[in-house]
Each structure stands twice: as C-alpha cells, then as structure tokens.
C-alpha cells in the first residue's frame, strides 16, 4: 500500500507542475477559434483532421465528433485545415476575439470507396503527438484489401498490422501483442461488443458500409478507456449523409448488404440504416445439405442538432448467427447494443459528451435429441460522461467518469418437453458494478517535447444476490501430492449474499504516460507507460474462443488482471512524407491471468473456482512498419518479432502449478509475423491489391507416446503448448473495375474480383491426432479451412 500512496503523491506533484506550466506568463491576451469539420459531400464529421496556425507550432486534431478548439495570442493568422484524401482549406483570420468557424472539406476524388473516407488523418507517422502503439486504418484502405469470399472484414484487416494476429482462419477474435481475445475492449459507437465474429470467426460483426473509422490502441491506452489489459478497438459508425439521400450496397457470394442514409429534420440531422444478410443457409439447402448456417446484422444511427451547442446521437447494432444441424440442433447467438449520446459544447474551449449505452450478448442452444434448451448471456448498462477542455495551445485536458452495471447469466438449462430426461437448472446469476474516473493531460512542454500523462482510478464491486461455496482452508481445489494432479474439493458450506451485500471490491490506480521528442522535422522518438486493470474474464480452455464461452466477473476467487506496458518507439517520415517508418519495442506483463487445470470442465459449471489457478503472463517484442503513403502504389510492410508466455503456479492449491510451474507459450505466441499489403492504381477504371502473410505456427501440444487401453489407442501428452503448427502463409490478390462514370450519373458501381490464398496453401487451422478405424493405426489429420477462394462482388452507390 505504501508504494501506491507514494506513487499517488508523485502524481499529485506532477499535476501541480503541469498546471503551473500552463499559466500564461505574459499579459498578452489569448483568443480561441473553434468549430466542427465536416465532409462537404455528405456532411459526415471528420475525426482526426488537423487544424493549425501556419508558421507556428500551434495545432490541434479534431475529436470523434469533428470538434476542434485552438487558442493563441491575439493576432493575424493563416489557419490550415487538412485531412488525408481531402483538399486543404486555408483561411486568414484576425484573432481579436473568440470565434466559431465550421469548415467543410472536399474530398480530392470521387471514387466510390473514398467518398466514405474518414479515418484519422495520417496513416503515416505522426511525429509530434506522444500517442504511440496506435494503429489507424482508413476504411477505404480496408476495402481495397483482397478478402475471402468478397466480405470486407474489419477485424481481419487489422491482422496485417504489426503486433496483431489471429488464431488462424475460422477462429474468432484477435490477439494484440501476445494478448488473449478477451483482453481486447471492442467498442462500436462506445458500446461493448462481446463477440466480434460471425460464423465462428469467418467474418467480423462490423459491416464496412456502416463503419466510419476505426482505431486500435495496442498500448498507451488513453485514460478515458478502461477495463481491458491488452488493447482497445474503437469503431465508430457513420452518422449518415446530411446532404442528400444515398444508397450503398453490395452483392457477394456469401452475403449481400444494403445501406440507406440521408438528411433528417431538414438540415438538422441525418440517419443511417445498414443491413447485411448471408444466404449461405439457402445455398447449403440448395446443395442438399441438411446442416445450415447463416448470419445477419443491422446497424442504425440517427443524429439531431439542437441549436449550435447540442447534438443528440442515437445508434444501435443488432446481429445474429444461426446454426441448424439436421433440425436436431439449433444454435443462435449475437450481440445487441444501443446508445444514446448527447454532445454539449459549454463554450469554445469545453466540449462534453454524455452517453447511455446498453450491450448484450447471448448464446442459445436447442438440442432436440435430448429435449433441452440452453441459454447464457452477459448484459450491461453503461453511463459515462467525458469532457475535453482546450485550456491553451500547450495544454489540453480530458476528464470524465464512467460506470457500468453488469448482469452475467452463465447458463440455464430448460427441458423442452414433458418427456425430457433433463432437469431444469439455472447457474447463479452474477452482478457487478465497474466504475472509473480519469483525468489526462496533453501538454506541450516545448516546441520539440510533448507529454501526455494521466491517471484512471477504477473501482469494481461484485454485488450479492447469490450464494458462494465455502471451502476448507479456502481451497476450491487442492494438489494431490501422490497423483500429482489438481483435484476439486467439495464445498463445506455456502455463504448467501443478499442483493445489497458486496461480495468483493477492488480499487486500482492506473497511471498512463507518454512522451514525444521531435528530433527534427522528419523524425521523433516516443516513450510510453501504461497500467490497466481488467475485471471481467472470458472463460475458455479451448485453442479458439467459441460462442458458448461465458464471461465471469472478478470476485472472491478471481482477481482482477493488472498489466504494465512499457514501449519505446522511433518514427520517421522520408521524402516529404511519401514514406514513413515506425519502430517500437514493448514489454508487457499481466498479473492474475488465470489458466485452467488439466481436465477442466467449464460448461455448465457453477463453481468455476474449482477449475482455475491464478498465474501471470508476459509478452515482449519488436514491431516494424514501413509505409508508402502516396502515389499510384501505396501499402506497407510489417514485421513483428515477439514472445508471449505465461506461468501458473499452484498458489493456494499447493503443488507446482500448471505445466510444473514453468513458463509456457500462450496460444497467441508468434515468433515471426510478416505481412505486406499493396494497392496499385492502374488507371481510373482499374486498381489492384495484394496481401502477403507469413507467420510462425500457433503453439500446440502434440502427443509424445501412445498406449492401448479399453481397446483403443490413447495418446499421452507432455508439456503445454511446447509444439507448433506448421508456419502459416498465403498470398491474396484483388482487382477492382469501375466502369465509365459520368459525374452527373448518380448510380456508381464497381466489380471486385478477389482471389484468396492464390497458391492454394493448405494452412493447418488445427492438427488432430487419432486412430484410423479401418487400419487401427494412429494418424495426424490436418484441418485446412480455406484453399484458393476466388470470389466476385458487385458494389454500388446511388
């Protein structure tokens, strides 16, 4: 505790100096210019555009709602507004009073995809901002990448960035810097998305036509985000066209999509409705297949301007997957979220946003053969209030509060008929309240040195309303010295907690800090440290997370995960920003990472504490990203060299722990990860794209012997994740054809031909070991998901 209070004291001092540093030292008067930047064509606000006073180092980047505020000493200036893919707007202003200046930027091209471009300005290196370990993807870049079966996939596109990997094709989620899928906070318009994939991981839940921009924080997570230790993926939906009604859509092999958007209440607002549905089930039925699978999703958004200072946003998402096997097994699952937001501008320097957010994920299963029905879910309400204060050119302050109320339903079994042999059972529902308060400063210390520092105070309360088992010596499981295995213990009693009781509370200080030093006009070095706490955990003992995995809150038996991440980077632009280079090294450790004992059983288990041990994980690596930002050929090379491992000692259960207490690879460890992405504009009508990927194989456990028992061959297994699947690699290409378009014609169409896995590499998604029932011999069977997959998609905009 003393170290905590000591570090708190240190923070106080830091803040004190920070405020001192921003006191205006001269009597010269300052004025502020503020406003909103929008796209001239469709009225979408532009997040991440730069606004600066020419000839000075005074500048600012627009926030998520396109708002900016700049403060400078009185005088005459030239204001420059710029955004990648848009023409600069230059305005001379006389800054002799506070003023409001809303600006519309015009897209430099009228390409179908690029009209929607609104990603954060530079995909190229930003030198002055201390922000590091952040990946931004322009949605038009995402759309140019060749994809499997013509489905533009936001999550898959992230995997060509350094430090981001997946468990292979057909596996849900993604892994950032050696972290697990449940350590990523995935937000769609601020709502938590608990499952990011459709069809067990083949597609992502994000409809690219409804997405405006996305930002992935791999480290250096800003203090306004909390709750996950690995990364934050912040996905924002489009607001809808404010100028005129428009339709976009596409027809693909697996699914089709349609989006409608347009103005609402005259010029006061706009809306967007986007839908997507697969017709895989229809195709499978036509093919005579009795098993079917399918998904659909719906995105909604509306906004309304209440005078100059207030704006309301309403957004929603609803997605669903369905599996049906032989009519005897039905499974359906999906996310639903809704969000009401209120932007309020207090004055030209103080911007605020209040959000009320709802998220839900549920999994349903019907098994006819056993006449039973299974359901599990997680639901939360989130109220948050974020403010940004543009105190001066040199000092900006973010601060806010957030509270999330969770309800976990880990599972309920219901018999579906009178004759069912299954008894009804409901596992204990769990409740929790997660709150946070934060403050973060962006502080220009000199023309070359900028700092960002802040702190998040997070608090987690596991609420009552359930009973908890009591174990002898507080040991839910115990090491059996003679057999050398962990055995579950029988509870010796139960403690009932009333709804008003607290089962456990946790409080954590999460300091975050970063420093950028600009070496010269073209290069800078950055340093970062962040600490984060994670209070909810996805229980999964499988190689890939499955839709039926359930979330569990921290409490009496599960401690919050706590991570420290340190990063150092070098950033450089070449040839007038034509090329850029980003290099980062990082080290991350996570305390209280749980792992599962040998033979753990997680499904339908009311006492998860008997299946887990508390451990730690660590990851470190070097990331390298080289981009070509301009010209007909654009793209990048990314390489990551990394290590990710974990250790799980016996702790209170005694014994050496999992894997004899030694460090072992996490399933997300990839020694080498190389990717290349290129887009080439051949002519006005034709453009080409390519991806190449090479990755070290996923760590797995192979058998180390066999013996006969019960008339079958039993495999014996050794140390956890000590072997590896063969290396994963593939090449994808695509060609896009845009037929003749007259500017006056509203209908604009394009054909996208893509070939995934061009050289038909059979990448092992898994290798299973078993006995051939014809010969009786043991054999290894490789499951490869996608061989070469050509596809054709037609996209249109009207």
């Amino acid at each position, binding site marked *: 505790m003393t170290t905590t209070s000591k570090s708190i004291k240190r923070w106080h001092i830091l803040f004190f100096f920070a405020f001192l540093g921003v006191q205006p030292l001269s009597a010269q008067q300052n004025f502020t210019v503020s406003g909103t930047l929008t796209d001239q064509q469709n009225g979408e606000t532009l997040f991440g555009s730069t606004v600066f006073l020419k000839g000075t180092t005074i500048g600012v980047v627009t926030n998520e709602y396109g708002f900016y505020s700049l403060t400078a000493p009185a005088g005459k200036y030239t204001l420059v507004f710029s955004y990648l893919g848009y023409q600069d707007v230059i305005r001379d202003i006389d800054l002799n009073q506070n003023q409001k200046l809303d600006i519309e930027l015009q897209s430099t091209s009228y390409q179908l995809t690029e009209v929607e471009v609104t990603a954060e300005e530079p995909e190229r290196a930003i030198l002055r901002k201390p922000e590091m370990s952040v990946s931004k993807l322009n949605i038009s870049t995402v759309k140019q990448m060749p994809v499997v079966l013509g489905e533009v996939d936001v999550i898959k596109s992230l995997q060509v960035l350094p430090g981001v990997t997946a468990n292979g094709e057909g596996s849900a989620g993604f892994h950032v810097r050696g972290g697990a899928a449940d350590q990523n906070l995935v937000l769609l318009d601020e709502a938590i998305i608990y499952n990011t994939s459709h069809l067990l991981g083949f597609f992502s839940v994000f409809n690219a036509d409804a997405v405006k921009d996305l930002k992935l924080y791999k480290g250096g997570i800003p203090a306004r985000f909390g709750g996950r230790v690995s990364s934050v993926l912040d996905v924002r939906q489009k607001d809808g066209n404010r100028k005129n009604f428009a339709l976009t859509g596409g027809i693909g092999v697996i699914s089709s999509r349609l989006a409608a958007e347009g103005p609402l209440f005259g010029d006061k607002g706009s809306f967007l409705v986007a839908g997507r549905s697969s017709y895989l089930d229809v195709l499978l039925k036509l093919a005579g297949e009795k098993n079917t699978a399918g998904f659909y999703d719906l995105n909604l958004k509306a906004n309304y301007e209440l005078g100059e200072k207030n704006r309301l946003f309403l957004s929603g998402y609803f997605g669903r997957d369905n599996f049906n096997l*032989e009519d005897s097994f039905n499974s359906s699952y999906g996310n639903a979220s809704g969000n009401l937001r209120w932007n309020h501008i207090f004055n030209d320097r103080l911007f605020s946003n209040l959000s009320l957010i709802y998220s839900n994920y549920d999994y349903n299963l019907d098994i006819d053969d056993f006449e039973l029905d299974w359901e599990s879910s997680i639901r939360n309400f989130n109220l948050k209030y974020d403010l940004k204060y543009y105190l001066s050119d040199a000092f900006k302050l973010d601060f806010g509060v957030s509270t999330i109320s969770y309800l976990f339903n880990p599972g309920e079994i219901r018999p579906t008929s009178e004759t069912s042999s299954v008894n009804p059972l409901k596992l204990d529902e769990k409740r929790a309240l997660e709150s946070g308060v934060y403050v973060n400063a962006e502080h220009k210390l000199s023309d070359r040195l900028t700092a960002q520092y802040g702190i998040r105070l997070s608090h987690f309360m596991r609420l009552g309303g359930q009973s908890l088992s009591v174990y002898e010596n507080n040991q839910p499981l115990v090491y059996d010295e003679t057999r050398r295995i962990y055995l579950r213990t029988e509870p010796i009693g139960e403690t009932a907690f009333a709804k008003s009781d607290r089962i456990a509370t946790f409080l954590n200080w999460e300091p975050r800090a970063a420093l950028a030093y600009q070496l010269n006009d073209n290069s800078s070095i950055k340093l970062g440290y962040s600490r984060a706490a994670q209070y909810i955990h996805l229980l999964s003992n499988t190689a890939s997370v499955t839709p039926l995995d359930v979330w569990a809150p921290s409490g009496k038996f599960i401690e919050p995960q706590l991570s420290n991440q340190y990063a150092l980077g070098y950033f450089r632009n070449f040839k007038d920003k034509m090329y850029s280079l980003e290099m980062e090294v990082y080290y991350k450790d996570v305390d209280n990472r749980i792992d599962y004992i040998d033979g753990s059983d997680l499904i339908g288990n009311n006492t998860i504490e008997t299946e887990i041990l508390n451990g730690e994980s660590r990851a470190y690596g070097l990331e390298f990203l080289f981009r070509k930002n301009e010209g007909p050929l654009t793209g990048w090379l990314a390489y990551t060299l990394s290590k990710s491992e974990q250790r799980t000692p016996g702790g209170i259960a005694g014994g050496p722990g999992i894997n004899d207490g030694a460090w072992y690879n996490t399933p997300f460890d990839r020694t080498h990860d190389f990717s290349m992405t290129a887009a080439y504009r051949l002519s006005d009508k034709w453009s080409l794209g390519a991806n190449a990927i090479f990755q070290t194989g996923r760590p797995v456990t192979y058998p180390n012997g066999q013996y006969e028992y019960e008339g079958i061959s039993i495999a014996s297994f050794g140390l956890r994740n000590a072997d590896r699947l063969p290396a994963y690699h593939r090449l994808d290409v695509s060609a896009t054809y845009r037929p003749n378009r007259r500017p006056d014609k509203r209908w604009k169409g394009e054909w996208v031909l893509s070939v995934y896995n061009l050289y038909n590499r059979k990448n092992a998604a898994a290798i299973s070991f078993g006995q051939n029932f014809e010969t009786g011999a043991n054999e290894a069977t490789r499951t490869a998901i996608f061989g070469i997959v050509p596809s054709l998609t037609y996209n249109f905009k009207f």
Partner: protein
Amino acid sequence: MKTIHLYLILAFVTLLGSCTDVIEVDVPEAPIRLVVEASLDWEQGTPGNEQSIQLRTSTPYFENQDNPPVSGASVEVMNLDTGETFIFTEGTPGNYSIDTFVPILGNRYQLDVVYEGERYRATETLFPVSPFTEISQSTEEGEDDVLEVNVSFQDPETVANWYYLRFQARGDLLLELYYIEDEFIDGNEFTIFYEKIEDEDQNIQEFQPGDVVDIQFYGISEDYYNYLQLLIDQFDSAGEPFSATPVPLVGNCINLDNPDNIAYGYFRVTEKTTAAYTFN
C-alpha cells in the same frame, strides 16, 4: 457437455466444407512407461470371481504395433474393508488373472503391482450400475433415416451417480464411449443413442439390419469419471479447433518408489451390465 462440443465441431467442418487430410508430423517422444489396464468389472447376475489385469508398456505415438506385454510382475488386489487378498497369476504374457475374486458393492480395493523393482499402488471403490430399462432401434434421432440403437436406464434419485457407456459394433474397430453423470438428469430415465455416420475415408458404413452392437454399461467412481472424461474428450478430438488444449492424462496408479516414473492406465472396480443388440 460432450454433445455440444461434438455439434460445434460438426458445424465447423460442415461450414464451407473445410477440408481435412492426413499428414506426416514429427512428434516428441516421452520415456516408455508401464501401462496398467486393471479393470475388475463385476457383471450383474454373475459371481464376478474371474478377473484379469493386463500389463504392457507404452510406445512412441506413431509406432503402430501392439504394446509390448510386461511379464514377471507381481500383481495383487486387497479388499481394504475385509482384509482379503487376491493374488493374480500370469497366464499368457502380460495377462494376470484370478478365479477366486470376491466383489462386494461399496467396498474399497487396493491394487499392488511390483515391476522392475518398483512398487505401483492404486485404490478404488466398487460402485453399482443401473440396469437397462429399454433397448430399441429407430431412425429419427441424430441423422434422419439412419439406423440407431437407443439405450435407456433409470437413474436413482438423490444419490450422485457416474456411468461409463460403451458401444461397439461387432466386427468393427470403431467404438463410441460415453461418460455420464447425473448432475442434470438426477432421478430420471435417460436415453442415449448410437448411430454410425458413413465415412468413406475410414470405411465406416451405417448400421444395417442384422448388424450386432455390443453395449456395456458401468457404474463408476467420480474419480474414474474425471479420468474417463478427459480420456474420451481427448480421444475424440485432441487438437481439433474447438477442443480443449490436450493435457497429460493421469491415472490412479502411483509409483511408490520412483514417483517420476509414472504409470499410465487405471485401476477400476465396477459393476457392469451388458447387452448385445441385433438390428432388424
């Protein structure tokens, strides 16, 4: 929840027809271990006096030959409740048997094996099984229009029970193993079906009229249930995409002299009921 898992795998494989093929893989090699297959199963309605225990050694994973038998070991079982000792004698190499064994429900038994100067010991309790209430055939369960056999039994109420169910088509290597606990079905009549799904690669055909399937049903201990659960899950799907990370399978035979030199296999004492069903 084996079923759910199985269905997930099915969904996965069905989806877009992901392809599987047999490949060569280099696997690690662990030291050779003693394998104890000590299954003292008392068939209902018989005296249960004839019992046998098999001792073998393990082999590297891809060495596809019979496990070498272990000869010259000393094998005895003691009833810890009565103090009676049963000495097993070696007949064919590696096969140790006795015809004077006395099974008593609820009694605890201890196995002692001495092999190469090292003593291995295990203890286990004899649990009762529930008799079959019905065995029938149908085509509606599982895949439609495919013959399956349905086996029903009545679980006794309020007591915790663990079962092991084994189907094997006569003349077939293929078998299907089930572990069942009564957590969700306590006190109910429960039915499980078994059907064969055609598989050209492994030359598996659906059941035809005239085919015989042997069914064995055991009442087992909770500890053996945990062992079997892991054994069966890993046998069915080790390494598959949605299966748990494979882990060492640890039986109940402890090496008293050299704990690092573990033994594979298990010492079980069960009551069992068997049936042979002929499809018509």
